[in-house]
């Protein structure tokens, strides 16, 4: 399946060269190395230090080939293919060269394969078998790195929460250090000492805990870097692999599960390289997120509330109860009084069945999948939803010459796109511009990182437009039309309002005007904002002014594994018109009642106008940016059904709790942020009594003595919807941007708070993964050094964070890259209810900070 997606799409004709490798005539694009040419044509050349996504360094010297008319053996990874070259990869000379290299590498390699977890999938083992001598001529004591004071006979050093290093095994291919630097932009791992005592180690006093550190283990050709996740768990030859996807990030990163059938357990996740999506890099949240599947804390059986207490029940009892209560409610108050909230991480079939159940069985339009947005717009055809529906290609970031990130901390929200952006910058000399209310970790590659005043998002964009008009960077009529709409705003005023200097605005405008291919990405600062409509209107003006869509892509990136699918399948109160029409056609009808989104449903619950609620996979109490509001709403309900993997704040107050399957336990299809539908296969049998979402919905439907249709029927209906082009065009005319002055703030609360994801976590489930919690296991306050100094806070100090509606106490963590006065708190930990600080009606939540004396 992955193979056809891996094919590179060549857009323009490129010059080619023809060379002969082992008597085979091969034509490759100019600039290809001999090694790549050989590999593309099925000729095997062994390597250690070469990686398809990193620059060649020629360190291991394993890829020797003999090239006619060249005296010495050449390293194929760094030799460019030239017209008429004649290459031999299998001559005696080459074989001798490789054998010598293997011998050199094995000189100081400990051969502790029995205790090494790489045994069985080790490049060095395999290549020694293939090319090496059967005996060693080295008769000295092997060099060994021993830590002082260690009594262990194993020379392992833990260099990060997850990563264990054994320097003896290291063959110094430098792949880890290079990947860390070139691909991830992290510097926590390096090479120290020199010559044959060179060692790879973490930077002094630092831990290797970057959000991509798991990749270092995966690309290590020997067992020098291993992780706790896989360490001493099982031998690789006892496992089987299942292709799957990441269920946490929205890119749909391709993964491979290593599982063991008898234990019904997944042992690790590795990448399944797909150049269109992930380039073979996995963020740690993807790599270690699978551990939630094996967690012993999973909900085991259905629970029903009896006399205020949740007790265990059979599936049948629970389903009967749901049917009984839902029928009661709809009989009494009408079916409009039942609402549903699905998780955007569920597969297509579950989401579609959910929506179909509500719309055809309950005859209600109250379905939604967005649980963490404040003040959702009611209408489907807002500029915002238009922006969200625009097509986007991850691979197109690579060859963009300008990558523009607006209102997003890409590393936290979209780690894959973050890596693509780095790649575009490091390998293709793209210029990166980040416009965000706080400085992010992309600062080191950014040509310009403009930090605007919190809450002046639309002004920042207006400022760029005005700077372009001021500099005559755009055609006259356009400039005039927009200037009219934006009047009476002027450049200096706007610059002052948004806090970006006029010079910086001019630089940004020039970059947008001059770019030939652009990738413009909006993130959560825009989508979660209460004023998202205003901001996206400004973005739409910007798009029109510079014609961005004509020379690239402009999109607001979806946030969850199947947000894209949820939109396309119409799991929202007002689907896009095309989707709505299609659904009407398929179902032969469509409920006419008024649609309510999560926000308005919760408001109606408070008024007791919504009495029944069905939550599947979501945890609104934890993620919705107003904890009090959600809790009050849900507690007023007559009947709440919650399906989830784990006990959560929402399942705690539910009347019926159903154990849900994770994505690894059933076959499912997911639509990533590009709109690409991909399949994750079932790796293990459902844990305990849990069931997939689709099956749960079907069982409930069966209680109504109705049917949603057979599996094949659902699949074909879903396919019809996915095939539909539901993208809405961005506005083609300039619109006035209503500049929103921030609402009056409560006295004394001044520091803006952003509630985001920890770089190692996503949503409410990942805190059940032991590996991910070893990076971060509780909420913390991320604060810039300046602000910390003013407040006399030190790393690790407990801080009382207070907002008008709540307070929490969290330890401080000082982040060097944050320069202005904002604070960040991750929302992924149920032990610290961060959302209780937030109010949904505020554009910006502000807090006060005070140190807690212990």
């Amino acid at each position: 399946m992955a193979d056809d997606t891996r094919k590179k799409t060549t857009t323009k004709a490129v010059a080619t060269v023809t060379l002969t490798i082992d008597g085979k005539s091969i034509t490759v694009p100019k600039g290809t190395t001999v090694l790549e040419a050989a590999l593309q044509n099925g000729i095997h050349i062994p390597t250690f230090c070469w990686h398809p996504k990193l620059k060649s360094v020629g360190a291991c010297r394993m890829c020797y080939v003999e090239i006619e008319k060249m005296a010495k053996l050449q390293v194929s990874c760094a030799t460019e293919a030239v017209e008429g070259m004649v290459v031999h990869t299998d001559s005696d000379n080459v074989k001798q060269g490789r054998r010598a290299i293997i011998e050199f590498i094995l000189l100081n390699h400990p051969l502790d394969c029995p205790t090494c977890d790489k045994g069985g999938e080790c490049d060095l083992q395999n290549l020694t078998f293939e090319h090496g001598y059967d005996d060693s001529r080295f008769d000295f004591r092997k060099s060994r790195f021993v830590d002082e004071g260690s009594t262990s006979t194993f020379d392992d050093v833990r260099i990060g929460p997850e990563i264990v290093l054994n320097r003896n095994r290291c063959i110094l291919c430098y792949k880890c250090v290079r990947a860390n630097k070139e691909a991830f932009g992290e510097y926590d791992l390096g090479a120290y000492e020199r010559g044959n005592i060179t060692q790879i180690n973490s930077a002094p006093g630092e831990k290797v805990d970057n959000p991509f550190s798991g990749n270092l283990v995966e690309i290590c050709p020997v067992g020098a870097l291993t992780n706790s996740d896989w360490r001493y768990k099982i031998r690789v030859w006892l496992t089987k692999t299942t292709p799957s996807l990441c269920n946490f990030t929205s890119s749909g990163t391709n993964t491979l599960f290593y599982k063991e059938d008898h234990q019904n357990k997944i042992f690790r996740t590795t990448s399944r390289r797909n150049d269109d999506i992930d380039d073979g890099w996995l963020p740690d949240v993807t790599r270690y997120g699978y551990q939630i599947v094996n967690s012993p804390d999973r909900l085991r059986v259905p629970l029903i509330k009896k006399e205020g207490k949740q007790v265990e029940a059979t599936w049948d009892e629970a389903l009967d109860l749901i049917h009984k209560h839902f029928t009661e409610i709809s009989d009494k108050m009408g079916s409009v009084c039942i609402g549903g909230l699905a998780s955007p991480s569920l597969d297509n079939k579950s989401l579609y069945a959910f929506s179909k159940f509500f719309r055809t069985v309950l005859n209600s339009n109250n379905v939604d999948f967005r649980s963490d947005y404040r003040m959702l717009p009611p209408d489907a055809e807002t500029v915002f939803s238009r922006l969200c529906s625009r097509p986007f290609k991850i691979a197109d970031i690579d060859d963009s010459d300008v990558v523009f990130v607006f209102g997003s901390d890409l590393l936290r929200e979209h780690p894959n796109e973050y890596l693509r952006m780095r790649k575009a910058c490091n390998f293709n000399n793209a210029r990166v511009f980040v416009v965000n209310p706080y400085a992010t970790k992309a600062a080191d590659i950014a040509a310009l990182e403009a930090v605007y005043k919190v809450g002046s998002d639309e002004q920042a964009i207006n400022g760029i437009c005005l700077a372009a008009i001021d500099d005559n960077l755009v055609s006259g009529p356009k400039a005039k039309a927009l200037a009219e709409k934006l009047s009476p705003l002027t450049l200096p005023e706007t610059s002052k309002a948004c806090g970006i200097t006029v010079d910086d605005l001019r630089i940004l405008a020039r970059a947008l005007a001059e770019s030939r291919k652009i990738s413009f990405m909006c993130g959560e600062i825009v989508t979660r904002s209460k004023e998202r409509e205003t901001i996206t209107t400004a973005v739409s003006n910007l798009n029109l002014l510079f014609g961005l869509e004509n020379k690239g892509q402009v999109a607001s990136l979806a946030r969850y594994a199947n947000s894209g699918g949820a939109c396309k399948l119409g799991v929202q109160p007002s689907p896009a018109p095309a989707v709505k029409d299609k659904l009407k056609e398929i179902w032969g009808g469509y409920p006419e009642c008024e649609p309510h989104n999560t926000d308005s449903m919760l408001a109606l619950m408070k008024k007791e106008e919504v009495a029944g609620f069905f939550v599947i996979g979501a945890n609104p109490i934890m993620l919705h940016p107003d904890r009090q509001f959600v809790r009050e709403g849900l507690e007023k309900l007559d009947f709440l059904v919650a399906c989830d993997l784990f006990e959560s704040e929402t399942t705690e107050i539910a009347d019926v709790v159903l154990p849900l399957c994770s994505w690894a336990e059933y076959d499912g299809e997911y639509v990533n942020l590009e709109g690409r539908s991909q399949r994750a296969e079932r790796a293990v049998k459902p844990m305990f009594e849990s069931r997939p979402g689709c099956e749960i919905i079907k069982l409930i439907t069966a209680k109504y003595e109705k049917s949603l249709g057979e599996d094949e029927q659902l699949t074909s209906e879903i396919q019809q919807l996915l095939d539909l082009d539901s993208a809405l065009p961005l506005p083609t005319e300039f619109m006035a941007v209503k500049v929103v002055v921030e609402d009056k703030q409560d006295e004394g609360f001044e520091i803006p708070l952003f509630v985001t994801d920890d770089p190692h976590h996503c949503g409410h489930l990942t805190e059940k993964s032991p590996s991910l919690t070893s990076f971060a296991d509780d909420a913390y306050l991320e604060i810039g050094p300046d602000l910390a100094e003013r407040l006399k806070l030190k790393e690790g100090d407990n801080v009382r964070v207070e907002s008008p509606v709540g307070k929490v106490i969290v330890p401080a963590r000082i982040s060097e890259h944050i320069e202005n006065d904002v604070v960040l708190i991750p929302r992924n930990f149920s032990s610290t209810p961060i959302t209780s600080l937030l109010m949904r009606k505020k554009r910006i939540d502000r807090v006060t900070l005070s140190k807690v004396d212990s």
Partner: protein
Amino acid sequence: MFYSPVITNGSEAAASDKLHLFKYVEDSEQYKLMTFESHGGYKAWKKVLTEMQPQQVIDEVKNSGLRGRGGAGFPTGMKWGFVPKDSSKPRYLCCNADESEPGTCKDRVLMERDPHGVIEGMAIGAYAIGCHTMFIYIRGEFNHCIDRMEQAVEEAYAKGHLGKNIHGSGYDLDMIVHTGGGAYICGEETALLNSLEGERGMSRIRPPFPAIEGLYACPTIVNNVESLAAVPHIINRGAEWYRTLGTEKSAGTKLFSLSGHVKRPGNYEVELGFSLKKLLYDPAYGGGILGDKKLKGVIPGGASTPFLTPEMIDVNLDYESLTAVGSMLGSGAVIVFDEDTCIVWVIQKLIQFFKHESCGKCTPCREGTGWLKQIIDRIEAGGGQPGDIEKIEEICGNILGRTICPLGDAAVMPIQSSIRLWREEWQYHIEHGKCMVKTEFPFK
């Protein structure tokens, strides 16, 4: 101020019309700008700025036949010509003053005693390739050179030889003095560039060559101190004059650092094509072997070049003649061993150096030098085993020509040549566990 007591033939050079590099080397004030200018300094620089186009400078140097004095002997003018003319990227010139080849100490004398000569040469080179920022990468241990060089750069800026709009020509040139961390590998041009960028000093794979993609991925020229120091003289006196020096293919003069068992170790400037025998035995130069012993062997071009035996020293010191007898001119460090030197001991010292200085990037050099050192240490300690020589030869064969940079070749070439020339001595050492010759050294 500290004046390093190095024997030179400065007085001879001062009297000679041909020797130019060491002309004022014995003048203790030469490092000062005033003295330097009074000796005709910066004349060439002004001439270049006012009268010559960059291409003319390149042509002049090309015609002079000046070849790189760092070791490889690549024609300097041709190297400058490789810089792409149409590239929009900035260009850099980097002077390689990381002189760490064992036995070589010529650049040090130039930088200590005639720093402005180096700056002038660099400035002309920079002008030729159109570079506006030039670097000099000085070996970290050369504290004195660093002080002198920094002082000289300051003076040159103050006098307007460097900086903005130099001498009203509209040409800007900045110079940065960078000190290394004391790693032999950083004398290799790509490792030097890595180190200059702040990376680990490890050589890069070529192509791309630095002239196309060097420092900060921009076209960069890396030249040795001595090559650049010769440039002002070429400009002043013309390529034709320079061609009259030396031999036909190896034009000009060369500094030789004579060390080891000779009576007068020191730096000598001679025309290329000078007789090695004369350099060793002439009283004006080496003055003969220490203690009037017999000569055992000579390394003619720094520790990384193959040995010459007494029968071979009737050779002229130029690139072609030395290649013909199976060695290399290298950096011009002539190391002399008398008859009482055990060749295994010499090799042990050399391999210890190369093992210590191997950067650890590519496998053959990293592991191979370590292994060789262990075997040779064992032989030297008297624990040699039959078959060790064959093993050493095979390991050398596996390193030679298979590494990224020439350090691997440098490490094994003296070993290979010593086994070729003195095999019976190696054999004796292995069989008897002791040296064949009596080893008493005046230095240890």
